[in-house]
């Protein structure tokens, strides 16, 4: 709705990032190894910039996001696996930092529901379709079936 209305407010009013001097740790440069850099970018997209609430640290220019990018690159360079990097951050910031919620007992419903709904919805539709189809006896020959279809069509026309 008011796109971006309080993007600024969350950044500037509450935490004063506007006046935050740029003391980002180390450099903000890409890793030399393209494979490692690709992994870093993939991780950036999965990590939430906590200051700006709804962006990933890949999208954000906030100071903290920059620090976290540097941190992630450092950990990757030091040989951490993706899981280790994510664990490092969740130990400090909690699951909230992950844009992709981890699968655990409290999030099973979140991950399963879309597909469960599809199956249940499909099931209900199939069941109702079958119930409605049931009155039609199974053993009709082609001629009878054609006649029935014709009759049904005729039956409906005056109403429509």
């Amino acid at each position, binding site marked *: *709705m*008011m*796109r*971006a*209305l*309080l*993007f*600024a*407010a*969350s950044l*500037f009013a509450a935490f004063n990032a*506007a006046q935050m001097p*740029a003391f980002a740790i180390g450099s*903000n440069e890409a890793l030399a190894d393209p494979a490692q850099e690709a992994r870093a970018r993939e991780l950036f*997209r*999965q990590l*939430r910039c906590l200051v*700006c*609430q*709804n*962006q*990933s640290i890949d*999208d*954000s*220019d906030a100071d903290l996001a920059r620090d976290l990018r540097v941190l992630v690159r450092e950990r990757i360079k030091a040989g951490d696996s993706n899981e280790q990097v994510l664990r490092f951050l969740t130990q400090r910031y*909690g*699951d*909230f*930092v*992950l*844009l*992709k*919620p981890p699968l655990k007992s*409290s*999030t099973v*419903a*979140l*991950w399963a*529901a*879309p*597909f469960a*709904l*599809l199956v249940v*919805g*499909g099931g209900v*539709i*199939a069941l109702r*379709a079958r119930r*409605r*189809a049931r009155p039609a006896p199974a053993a009709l020959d082609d001629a009878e079936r054609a006649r029935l*279809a014709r009759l*049904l*069509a005729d039956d*409906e026309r005056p*109403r*429509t």
Partner: protein
Amino acid sequence: MIAETGHFALILAALIAAFQCVLPLAGAARGDQRLMDSGRTAAVAQFLFITVAFFSLMHAYVVSDFSVANVVQNSHSAKPMLYKIAGVWGNHEGSMVLWVLILALFGAAIAVFGRNLPHELRARVLAVQGMIGLAFLLFILATSNPFLRVDPAPMDGRGLNPILQDPGLAFHPPFLYLGYVGFSVAFAFAVAALIEGRVDAAWARWVRPWTLAAWCALTLGIALGSWWAYYELGWGGFWFWDPVENASFMPWLAGTALLHSAIVVEKRDALKSWTILLAILTFILAMMGTFLVRSGVLTSVHTFATDPGRGLFILALLLIAAVGSLGLYAWRAPGLRTGGVFAPISREGGLVLNNLLLATATATVLLGTLYPLLLEALDAGKVSVGAPYYNLTFVPIMAPLIVAMGIGPMLAWKRGDLPGVLARLRIAAIVTGIVICGAILLNDGPLMAVLGVGLACWLFMGALSELAERIRLFRIPLRESLRRLAHLPPAAIGMTVAHVSMAVIVLGITASAAWQSERVLVMAPGDGVDLAGYRVTLDRVEKVPGPNYTAERAAMSVTRKGNVVTVLRPEKRAFVTPPQTTTEAAIHTTWLADIYAVIGDPVAPKAGEGGKAGWTVRLYHNPLVPWIWIGAVIMVVGGLISLADRRHRVGAPARKTRSAETPAAGAA
């Protein structure tokens, strides 16, 4: 004085709305024509009074009347006129007035253009509209009055958030509200039909144009918002799965499902209670969006400043509307007669699949948006649900929908011939196969890109095959085919256009996500960098004054093989009231890509280490990203073409079949 007039007009509008929800309803129950007609007068009067209120508020903004608190908080005398006007709805109170204005506009439109509706139905629809209007007018008057005065009046206002000082503000919210609020008409029709206990083909025919109009507006509103975010927020993204974006997307998804299921009601007299439910839920979702944004229940990049009193008030409104309408549904819908029978493989079957997938997609977005709140309420920790979740759930639900979109329109009503249809789609299949092979060979991005390109191609070819089939292209002389094309009903062309637009959007999203190039670096004047076959050189950075800000503007020349393509001029603007900086991206748009440049902070060389002085610069090459918005515009055009169909025209003077008076089948 003018502010008081506006306030008074709002109170009068609320009184009129109170009459509007009672009198026509009583009239319809008793068959009293005069009482029923009073609803039309009330709807028009309500609209006029809210118009007075709206323009009173706008007047206060235009003349910078700082004795009005709302103007003080959200405006400034040095603000350009466009933003003084658009600033009216750049805040909670003013945007609520716009909300009720649009609601009343729809009410008045039904009163004026709904001449051919059965009088009882029209009276009931207007009564329901009156109830919604009354509820929101009371909300404004009780918690969000924009006409409150301050005494003494300050010398100047506090200004508007600079991010909102953009032409986007002028157009994005009005279209969004036209969409949200427009769905109230479908809601009112659904509730009226439940009261009457009658849903038939004629009902669907009346409700479709309103839904279609609202849907077009919402499509445009969302697209404008996403475009605004793309160029304003400065990191090249266009959709963030933010709760508030989701709040606008859910009614769109549900509304899209509604458009399709209403076709089945109209043509085949089936899916009636489901369509009623969708009509109700679409508007409830729109109201829930309003609740989420304005209640303070969650934080988002877009939420309004809030207080809990307002939140509880909107929650009460939401619950009254939901429990009232859905309760009525639970009571009355089981009595609706089920209509036409159809085989699973049929046009109806295809539309049912469409609805199943769209409803699941809506539920997924709803769940993702609300899940953090649910967990918090259960004290089970706090999680984030972001883009990676939707990529893994929403996308797999939409992919089969797009496959089905290529097939569904070719299936016959009642019983379709799937092998036959697939045979007629063989050219589409072959082309898609070739394109997929090409994509696999050329793709240097993720594998998903191949899937996206394949889906887009399939949908595009499928839609064209359907059109070719209709005009019997290459099977009869070309002139004859063209004659057929000219005589196709606009609704059929509208559908093809809308489906093609979806292919364009899918391609735009896929390409920009998979093949974006990005450079983030420190550049000094004279430095150059390569970006996706272009060379971008920072020529200079200079200070430029603006009307209510000062800007640092860079000039970056973009060349390709030595030829200058364009000069990009991104800015960083520093506003004084309120003190904030914004980035203004510079974008060079071609048909195939955007070159997108943002200038950040100046970087000083580090003491001792040397390092480089210059500016942080972000450069992007976003392939096909303009197609997303071009696609959205085509989609709206498709909707409008459909709306031009005589059968869909709002208040079309003559109806060939099924006159309003004919008691149609389906009465409970």
